[in-house]
């Protein structure tokens, strides 16, 4: 199985709160993190994210794969920024050299060299920490938020019935889509198709993915016709909807919403007052 719902009831900080309150907190956290480049500020956010992750009740075994994948991904990109020095130009103007490494060979007369500077190093760390915090907060969601509650959660956050239900429906069909994909992959492998052997440029690679992409897409289109019929036949969209599931804010949820608002406002104010910009320790 490619995709399956990981949700179950857990002893978990996330599940202690109402899902609406949690999404508000999540949004505030995201927006606030993106306001800063200062490693010290980002460390605070990373700490919060780490606490959420460790108290999520999701075992290491369960989240090992996605977590390692994300970790490898952001490490790779942070390292790439570090090597090229790109991306940081917007937040720092001066660079202080720690060391310049020149390779002992040349390609057509050009000798490759890496300049290791304080700014690049700290920028890579900051970038890593930023994405790491967001990733930790996001990764726990499918494990801890009940898929049956997505619709009412987004309805409760003020989205219209139709959009809220569309989100709910998406959650319902992700596993089905995953299974269709797996079936198609198996069917094509049985015809000697080997995903590992795909080579060539981007366009050639996409073309060689057609045996997977075409059937999965066609299948999704055919299926969506049935889904629309099934919804029409059961009077979807004729008037205001009653949602069977109900959510109730408790004191703790109100406190979390208050905290989220405060977090965001304080972050906004600090950022407005030019705090939290890119920071390198004053060692020179």
């Amino acid at each position, binding site marked *: 199985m490619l995709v399956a719902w990981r949700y179950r009831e857990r002893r978990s900080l996330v599940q202690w709160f109402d899902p609406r309150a949690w999404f508000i907190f999540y949004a505030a956290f995201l927006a606030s993190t993106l306001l800063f480049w200062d490693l010290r500020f980002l460390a605070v956010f990373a700490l919060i994210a780490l606490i959420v992750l460790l108290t999520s009740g999701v075992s290491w075994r369960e989240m090992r794969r996605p977590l390692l994948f994300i970790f490898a991904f952001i490490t790779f990109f942070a390292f790439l920024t570090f090597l090229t020095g790109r991306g940081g130009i917007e937040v720092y103007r001066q660079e202080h050299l720690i060391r310049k490494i020149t390779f002992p060979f040349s390609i057509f007369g050009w000798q490759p060299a890496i300049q290791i500077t304080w700014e690049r190093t700290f920028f890579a760390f900051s970038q890593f920490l930023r994405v790491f915090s967001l990733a930790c907060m996001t990764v726990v969601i499918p494990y801890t938020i009940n898929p049956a509650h997505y619709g009412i959660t987004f309805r409760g956050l003020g989205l219209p019935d139709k959009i809220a239900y569309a989100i709910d429906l998406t959650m319902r069909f992700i596993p089905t889509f995953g299974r269709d994909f797996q079936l198609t992959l198996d*069917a094509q*492998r049985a015809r000697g198709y080997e995903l590992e052997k795909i080579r060539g440029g981007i366009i050639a690679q996409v073309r060689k993915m057609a045996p997977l992409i075409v059937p999965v897409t066609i299948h999704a289109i055919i299926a969506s016709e049935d889904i629309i*019929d099934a919804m029409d036949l059961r009077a979807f969209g004729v008037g205001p909807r009653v949602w069977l599931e109900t959510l109730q804010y408790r004191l703790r949820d109100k406190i979390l919403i208050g905290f989220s608002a405060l977090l965001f406002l304080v972050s906004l104010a600090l950022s407005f007052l030019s705090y939290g910009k890119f920071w390198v320790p004053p060692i020179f």
Partner: protein
Amino acid sequence: MAQPLVWVNNLSFRYRDRPEPAIREITFEAQAGELLLIAGASGCGKTTLIRCLNGLIPRSYKGELNGEILLDGKSIANLPLSRISQMVGTVLQDPERQILGTRVRNEVAFGLENLGLPRQEIVQRIDEALSYLGIHHLRDRETFNLSGGEKQKVALAGVLAMRPKILLLDEPLASLDPASAQETLRIVRQMVDEGLCVLMVEHRVEDVLKIHPNRVLLMEEGKIRYLGDMAGLYRVVNYREIKLPAGEVLKRARQDAPPPILQVLPSVQKEETDGKPPLVRFEQVSFGYETKPNVLRKIDFEIRRGDVIAVLGANGAGKTTLVKHAIGLLKPTSGRVLINGVDSHHLSVAEIARTLGYVFQSPSHMLFAPTVFEELAFGPRNLDHPPHQVEKEVMEALEIVNLSGREKEPPLALSFGQQKRVSIAAVLSMRSRILIMDEPTAGQDYQNYMDFMDAIVQLPNIEAILFITHDLDLAIIYANRVALMSEGRLVADGAPQEVLRDVERLMDWRLVPTSLLRLNLELLPNSGKFLRAEALAHLPSVHLGGKENSRESIL
């Protein structure tokens, strides 16, 4: 007579993008407490008729609609879908695709939520509908993890909760194993007896006969060919186009010429099968997932030259998992699978595909190429066959499935039956010697699939065939070996007349004996092996007494 619940007068409909009407001059009525069976070949207009009755035509499907429909005495022409949906409930063919909720209770609540009913009433109606269908224990389960039969009941519960007077069922048995199908039929009968008006579209006419439909409406090319009781149906239809009870076929086939004798697997000579090693061999194979151990338990199994094997068993018994091991898509957690004597752990799927072709159940899961030729060339090219050879293989495969001359057409524009044939040809073009098929007849009508199976078992160059099926009669007619699976175990493996002999035990394995099985068991002393009903009719010593008994036993 009371006012009919469904009253249809001179109804015709043409889809906007098609030149010909899909249905023409349809007139009929149905009463409360009536079960009306709607039968006919694929493409005869059954689904269009259902869409007219539930209001999707002309509201979601545009086109030219003529004629009148009254439901419960009211014309539906100007009613909104929300009103119609409270009078007519529809269960679509594939329950998987119409279940909208992530949990059972949310799914059943869906229509009631849309109608804006008070929450307390919604909860009460959910409980009622689930209890009525005997699935209250599923209330808090995830819909994705239900079995096929359970999904169908949940879809039905979602419709019943809206308390319709009329129920439309579009091929409700299509994806169910025999025992689940029988259970669904029992529930339908119960609902009819309690006063619901049920219109049921179904290919499996013979199965529906067990619950005594009041009348049958037979459609052909968009028109009504017959409307009346079952006895009359037998008079108008040919036993080759619609599957009738075996006793009925036996009676009528006597007047016709005997069916041609099939040349099963013509490339395999009897003498050469003896003493040779098996093509595929399972040794103590077990398999399981982290969340679901014991999908297969210690399976010992062989595929030999000359075998035509039917794999039977309930949904979830492990049939598909078993065949996925043969092609190497799955590798055993313990034990081993040998293909031509080589352990599947040392072979890639592509390597195994050179000898073993696997046709998946749904052609739409594999067809992708812009032309039939490209589709068929995909497999051999992946196996690095040289171009001139690929062309030859493609042309031969097309000829075998009777699609020569269609190589430039896009496969996705063909009819379902033709797509199915393309999907088989796409495997045949790889020159596989063993053909494995998952539910080869699903979604096709009787005449189509019988012709198709006749052609398959007579394919040249094939040394063994294995197919998974829910259709016991398919096993009786075509297989020379039956493998029966139950809860991950291979519980029986042998000649059809050996394995299917004990009718009581079959029930334990969720198989339901058919009229053809009973007839064959009765006539086995004369025939010596299982045969199709048409062939049984021409056995020299079949006398009337046996025939009458068999008719009794199925009705």
